[in-house]
């Protein structure tokens, strides 16, 4: 009712003060733009339009533009500077750096609305923390161990509570995730082509290997790529990248890859934490502390045993973050199968050779695994003597029995310093439409 009244009033007003324009398609450029009943800064706010809301420009009145939008179906005034003739792209505003330079157009809130996901919400929360709190308050929430006068930081019970209040835009963001979204395509797992991986390994110097799409794999993959080979691939079982997701995929990657709705549940507000090796600080993303993300339906995990048994299991995927929990190092391989419930009629596969997420049930319960091995000579450097690799096992998995490998698994056995070896790195490739893609790279973690 109010909206209609405001629009009518504005139209009448335009007759006297503004000039009408032919209805022109425009897009909202700001992240969260006030739509007002009148062409004035004190005009009543009738709604908020998020970035890239498509509007029809009806009238220009000074700095104010009267627009109508279909989604939501509203009419009102926005400042004309908030409109543009082209939609905003995530590439323009989604990254703080562009070509190694600060990106002046970067906007965490706009990036959230363009590509909603929990990760974008967290970044937006941090943006609001920076934007909405005074410098003094921010300093209170991230104190140094010792202040300028050398006094130690206050004890836990004397630390001031964080200052938080409701920010409408952030509330709307949270609300969106609470109602559920499919994580934006940008959250899909990055599958890297074999040639790209080879190039990245060739370019790497000791440190982790940077891959296209911002993905990194540990340097342990380097010796594997140099010493192993992939058998020729032809189109076979996997046809599209969307057919599978790496075992290491996070909830949002699974949501984005398989189009499953994810939902946010906020479990608590920001909290003081004091990590062992850092100053205390208020942890959280604006007013979100601990939270949980769940998927609307379970994901499927296909696991292949060393002798060819293949099982299908499902996982009611969730991601729970306790903001007060300090990350602890756990030794061993990073990845463990997460699914627990086997689907009926599929065999149980203990200690699988490889497992990955699949978009739909794989019907094959017995697959062919062939293994080739290469003994690796001790590396000349002392450091590599200790951490070097003894044997490289290259397993080909033919899922559908057509003689074409669908998955390749490389296992690098790493010297354990006591004469034996242990699985040090596992690299998983998938043959997607006749081309090998790096899917997972898992490696041994040693805590120190």
């Amino acid at each position: 009712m109010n909206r209609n009244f405001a629009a009518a009033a504005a139209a009448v007003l335009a007759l006297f003060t503004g000039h009408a324009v032919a209805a022109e398609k425009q897009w909202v450029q700001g992240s969260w733009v006030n739509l007002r009943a009148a062409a004035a800064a004190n005009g009543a706010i009738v709604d908020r339009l998020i970035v890239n809301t498509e509007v029809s420009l009806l009238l220009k009145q000074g700095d104010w533009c009267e627009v109508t939008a279909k989604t939501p179906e509203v009419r009102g005034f926005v400042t004309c500077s908030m409109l543009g003739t082209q939609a905003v792209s995530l590439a323009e505003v989604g990254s703080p750096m562009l070509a190694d330079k600060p990106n002046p157009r970067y906007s965490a809130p706009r990036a959230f609305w363009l590509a909603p996901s929990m990760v974008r919400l967290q970044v937006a929360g941090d943006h609001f923390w920076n934007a909405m709190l005074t410098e003094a308050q921010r300093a209170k929430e991230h104190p140094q161990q010792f202040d300028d006068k050398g006094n130690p930081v206050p004890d836990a019970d004397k630390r001031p509570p964080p200052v938080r209040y409701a920010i409408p835009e952030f509330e709307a963001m949270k609300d969106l995730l609470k109602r559920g979204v499919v994580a934006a395509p940008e959250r899909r797992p990055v599958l890297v082509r074999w040639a790209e991986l080879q190039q990245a390994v060739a370019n790497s110097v000791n440190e982790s290997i940077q891959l296209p799409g911002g993905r990194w794999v540990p340097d342990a993959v380097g010796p594997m790529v140099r010493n192993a080979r992939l058998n020729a691939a032809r189109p076979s079982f996997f046809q599209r990248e969307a057919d599978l997701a790496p075992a290491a995929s996070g909830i949002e990657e699974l949501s984005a890859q398989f189009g499953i709705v994810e939902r946010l549940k906020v479990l608590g507000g920001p909290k003081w934490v004091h990590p062992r090796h850092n100053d205390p600080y208020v942890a959280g993303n604006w007013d979100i502390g601990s939270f949980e993300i769940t998927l609307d339906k379970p994901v499927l995990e296909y696991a292949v045993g060393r002798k060819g048994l293949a099982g299908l299991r499902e996982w009611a995927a969730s991601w729970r973050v306790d903001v007060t929990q300090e990350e602890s190092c756990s030794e061993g391989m990073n990845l463990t199968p997460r699914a627990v419930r086997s689907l009926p009629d599929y065999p149980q596969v203990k200690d699988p050779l490889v497992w990955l997420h699949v978009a739909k049930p794989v019907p094959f319960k017995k697959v062919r695994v062939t293994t080739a091995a290469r003994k690796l000579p001790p590396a000349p450097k002392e450091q590599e003597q200790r951490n070097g690799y003894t044997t490289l096992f290259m397993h080909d998995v033919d899922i559908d029995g057509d003689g074409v490998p669908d998955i390749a698994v490389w296992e690098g056995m790493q010297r354990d310093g006591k004469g034996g070896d242990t699985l040090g790195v596992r690299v998983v490739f998938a043959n997607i439409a006749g081309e090998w893609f790096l899917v997972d790279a898992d490696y041994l973690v040693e805590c120190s």
Partner: protein
Amino acid sequence: MHMMIRSLLLLALCGFALLPQAPRAANIDHPVPLAEPVAVGHDEMVFLFQADSELRVERRHWSSGKVVTFRLPLPPRDAQWRLPRHLVAVNDSGVWVVSHKVSLVRPNGKVAQVEFPVPSTSRGLTAYEEGAQDIAIGLADGDLLLLRKVRGETRGAAFRIRWQGLDRLSIQRIEGTPQFSAGAAAARLRDGRVLMLAGYGAADQAWLFDPSRDRWVQTGSLRLGRMHGALAATADGGAFVAGNGGQLQGSTKDAQEAASHAAEIWNPRSGQWLPLPPLPLSLRVTTYLAEGPSATVLPDGSLLVAGGMHPHVLLLRARNGTYAPAWQVAATLSKPRMGGIMQALGNQELVVSRGAQSTNDDRCCRYAAGSERVAWRGDGEQRPSSVGLVRRDGAVAQRVDRVFVAGGWESFYFSTGAIQASAVAELVDQRAGTVQALPPLPHPMFTGKAQWLDDDRIIVKAIAHRALYEQPFYGMDGRSLEFGSRGFLAVLDLKRNTWTVLDDEKLAWAELAGVLRGEAVLINPDGAAWLMDPTSRQVRGLPPAIFARRGGTLRVLPDGRVVVAGGEAQSESILAVDADCQGASCQERPYGTGPLKPARRYEVLRDGQWAASTPSQAGSTSAIVLQDGRVMALGWIEPPTNAKTPKAGRWLIEESDVSGRQWRALPLPEGVSSAEGAPGSSCGRSAPETVCRLLLVEHPSVPSGAIFLLRAGADGALEDVWSWGEDTGGWKAVARQSRTGAGSPLAADRVPLLVLVGKTLYGADLLSRQARHWVQ
């Protein structure tokens, strides 16, 4: 077979009957010297003792036994009731005694004294480290040269102290003294000059002090920078230095420790240092109360070093103006005297005084009382006892009545743990009852194996070990190793008395399994295997063993099979095709993976293929490969960790059949519980690094013939020995250990040789007679 054993045992018995008498060794009683004694010529040694309320200077003449005594007042003690450190020096002016004051005891017994002036700064004379880092040299002109290191500074100061007549001494600082610091060494040369090695901070620098002009000039640099080296002047006006550690900064551990096995000699004409033959035993001292070994020169110009962690005296015989090609172990003290002072009494006799020793309860350390006088025959080429047999993991190989022994290691726990390797090689002649010194190994060897190639050639393979933190070595980390050892391969030609080194980098970690048709069979811990022809030096690859394995037994059987058994091995495997194999004929084979655990399978290489046995019940801690290929294994079965009611582990002796498909349990000796040694002391977890309460060993001289089971007490000392009767299928108790004369038990893991003679079982160094302490 039994006849052969009996023959060998008989030979050993004959050997004992023919043993030569040990050379003279005598202990000379006197109290613990307060300072390092000073040798004067080849007959007199000057001591400083603490009497009840005075200091006593004694000039002892060894030949006559005459002792001339002088007395000095006792200096004040410090807050901890300790006397200050003292130094002694001797020259024509008398005996100089240095602590915070300098005393000169004139030949007529009169005493002159002077105190160091009290300095005006805190870094002055009182900051000298109580004499701990001082060096006092009696100059030929009658004065005393005192080199003092200042606490906290790298630059020391030098002083000339002169007798001014009556009871007066003067102190004059010598300007222009070069930098010297901790670890410096000095010796008076034959021409009266003093050669000083600068020590820390300039460890390869050497300086000459000319007393006639009070000037220092630099001479040639040492080839290896070293600290606390044993330095002695030679008869030709030069000097030599040997042993102890390299400079602590900058270089690798290997480079730092290279000095421990190295000696070099300074030529007074050229001013240059030249290398001497390497020391076959380490001359490195790392313990409280001792800073370095000592050196001296025999009247005939031969060089002598001693005072290491071990009790051996090394001799480099002078011959026709040059030196022998190798050092020999000339004598062995009854107990080590670390940092002890040596004096040559003749060309075949010496006395060693003071030095640090462990206490009676094996703690570190105290200064030794008394002096030990030892003599030897010849140049040490023939000796009555073996140096190598008492070491761990030395290479031992027997051919009829000749036993080749080389290398091995000893560990020392004094202030810090240290492990030292030996390059000594010997030939034990059981018939003659002698030990013949052989040319030392090309490099010191911690662990290794030897095999006779024929009557005149022996091949030795040393296994490389890294002196690193993360490289475990018998339960200790690599820091304890004095250096990273080379994994060399060498052949000794007894006719030519020379070693030929057959180094090949890829063989560094390999162990010698045996000799197959004249070629050495070498197997790496990771399973890689090779054949090496010692004549052509050609190396051919053998198929790799399936499992990585550490320790255990490797054997080449007479029919050409190669067997690896026991120790710790991988237990998992993955079937795979060799990735480099092309074509349809490529077969799958198992590749071992996983950590090392007490081995349950053994492997046999036959017709170019390795085959693994079925697993035994227990993980074998010690295993024996019988001549027909059967394997006898002693293992510990770990208790299940998930059992609801706790269960104990147990010992099990098993024997495989020839095919390796089946194992059968053998009985334990009567009176031995299957839970012997449990809990917590079994070898179940890491056999090579644990003292096993039970150990299965075979007579290394009689391979595949005499099998013994040893039982050790909680302290690792051997208590019981049983022998296996192949015909009776049971064990027979053959010996029980009594204590040695010195009261120290023989550790169960040091049984390189066992000889049963009548009712007496001899172990360890059978020729030293120290091992005759197991009596049935």
